[in-house]
């Protein structure tokens, strides 16, 4: 493993030296962001290679209006709000779900959409709302759960659907052209579902190299080597270094589940605004499970904290250290924006891995207390 990493690193440096210019690549997925830091890969990169984080952390891309809608729901006495752990601490207009829970609201964390449905079955007098975030990796589980709820005629279960699609966000970033990007390291486990072939438009229409990679350091370095090699050759192609796991066509059964229960819709993202065909909505047949409709939630505007630059962080425009709140007003223990909340958020990763170990230890202790 180590000799392999060393060889890849040497090759990456040689390729970048040969380029004679700066090259900027985006790792789209939050899991890649964390893996890059955890493996210490940033310090191994050539000086003219910049790796920027993309809009691939589900918590970070969720529009503030949906965070606020979930928080408003959780204030209702008859509602049990269920979600994945990372959403709990995202600040909203009325505080966070975590703060509401501390004040007595019924907010619960699950690891699976199934568990959210089980809570509804166990509590027939409660309106159980599942705040469903995540990309294509996570959305099929929500689809199967909604289908099951429908089959069983469960009337006290609904979903606030915030599922998003990765490729339209990549296209939107390229369309704005605000951040120069020479290529993409594509997410491993989203690609399990959508298949490597889903990135073909990025290569063919936008002429950018795409390499699908897993999360091990060797996978990431191999992905970067392939990307820079393509940049050097000037011939962008689609490559997959994670072929033991990701196929060209993806998981067709999971795709069918998505098509059965959801329709593709224009969806609001943090910072990126509403991107055409970039998210999922319940299909008409399943709209009675839409929490916003069923419970009559008013979805307001996106009111973000004035200091927060998360939107620019997730679009690769700025690095966390360029945000005036980073590591001062905004820390993992007291986050202002979602990128500092999520374990896969870029700011949280920077904070955790690129600071001195003493302050890290202090923050870890604070994080454990909360």
């Amino acid at each position, binding site marked *: 493993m180590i000799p392999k990493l060393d060889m890849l690193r040497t090759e990456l440096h040689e390729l970048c030296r040969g380029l004679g210019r700066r090259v900027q690549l985006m790792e789209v997925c939050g899991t890649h962001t964390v893996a890059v830091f955890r493996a210490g890969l940033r310090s191994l990169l050539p000086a003219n290679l910049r790796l920027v984080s993309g809009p691939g*952390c*589900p918590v970070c891309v969720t529009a503030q209006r949906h965070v606020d809608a979930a928080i408003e729901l959780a204030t209702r006495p008859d509602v049990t709000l269920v979600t994945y752990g990372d959403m709990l601490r995202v600040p909203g207009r009325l505080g966070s779900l975590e703060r509401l829970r501390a004040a007595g609201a019924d907010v619960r964390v699950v690891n699976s959409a199934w568990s959210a449905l089980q809570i509804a079955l166990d509590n027939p007098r409660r309106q159980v709302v599942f705040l469903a975030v995540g990309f294509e*990796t996570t959305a099929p589980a929500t689809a199967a759960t909604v289908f099951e709820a429908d089959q069983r005629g469960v009337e006290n279960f609904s979903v606030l659907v915030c599922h998003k699609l990765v490729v339209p966000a990549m296209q939107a970033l390229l369309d704005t052209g605000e951040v120069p990007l020479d290529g993409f390291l594509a997410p491993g486990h989203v690609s399990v579902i959508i298949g490597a072939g889903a990135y073909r438009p990025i290569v063919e229409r936008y002429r950018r190299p795409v390499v699908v990679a897993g999360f091990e350091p060797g996978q990431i370095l191999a992905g970067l080597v392939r990307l820079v090699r393509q940049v050097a050759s000037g011939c962008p192609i689609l490559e997959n270094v994670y072929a033991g796991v990701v196929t060209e066509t993806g998981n067709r059964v999971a795709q069918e589940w998505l098509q059965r229960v959801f329709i593709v819709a224009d969806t609001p993202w943090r910072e990126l605004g509403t991107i055409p065909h970039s998210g999922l909505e319940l299909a008409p047949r399943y709209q009675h499970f839409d929490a916003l409709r069923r419970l009559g939630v008013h979805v307001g505007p996106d009111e973000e904290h004035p200091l927060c630059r998360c939107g620019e962080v997730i679009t690769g425009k700025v690095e966390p250290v360029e945000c005036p709140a980073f590591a001062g007003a905004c820390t993992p223990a007291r986050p202002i924006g979602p990128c500092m909340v999520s*374990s896969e958020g870029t700011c949280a990763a920077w904070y*955790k891995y690129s600071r001195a170990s003493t302050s890290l230890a202090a923050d870890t202790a604070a994080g454990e207390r909360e």
Partner: protein
Amino acid sequence: MCLAVPAKVVGLAGEAATVDLQGNTLQVSTVLTPEVAVGDWVLVHAGFAITRLDESSALETWDYLRQALGTDQATAGGEQGEESAA
């Protein structure tokens, strides 16, 4: 959140599988992977098996996660546990 973890299928009953995940046994749904058989390696995400995968990829990921989990538990109160249990 988009991290899935490899596990080995040790039992099947209807649309549920019992999997061995780094020594822990848990139940996952196979509605997204109806083709799985006992002895297969699968990737588990949010309580669902999302694909089969070959053993060498599974073991490579498994090794990596074991190291990463060790690091995380030492430095971040085991936040990875949230993901890996997902």
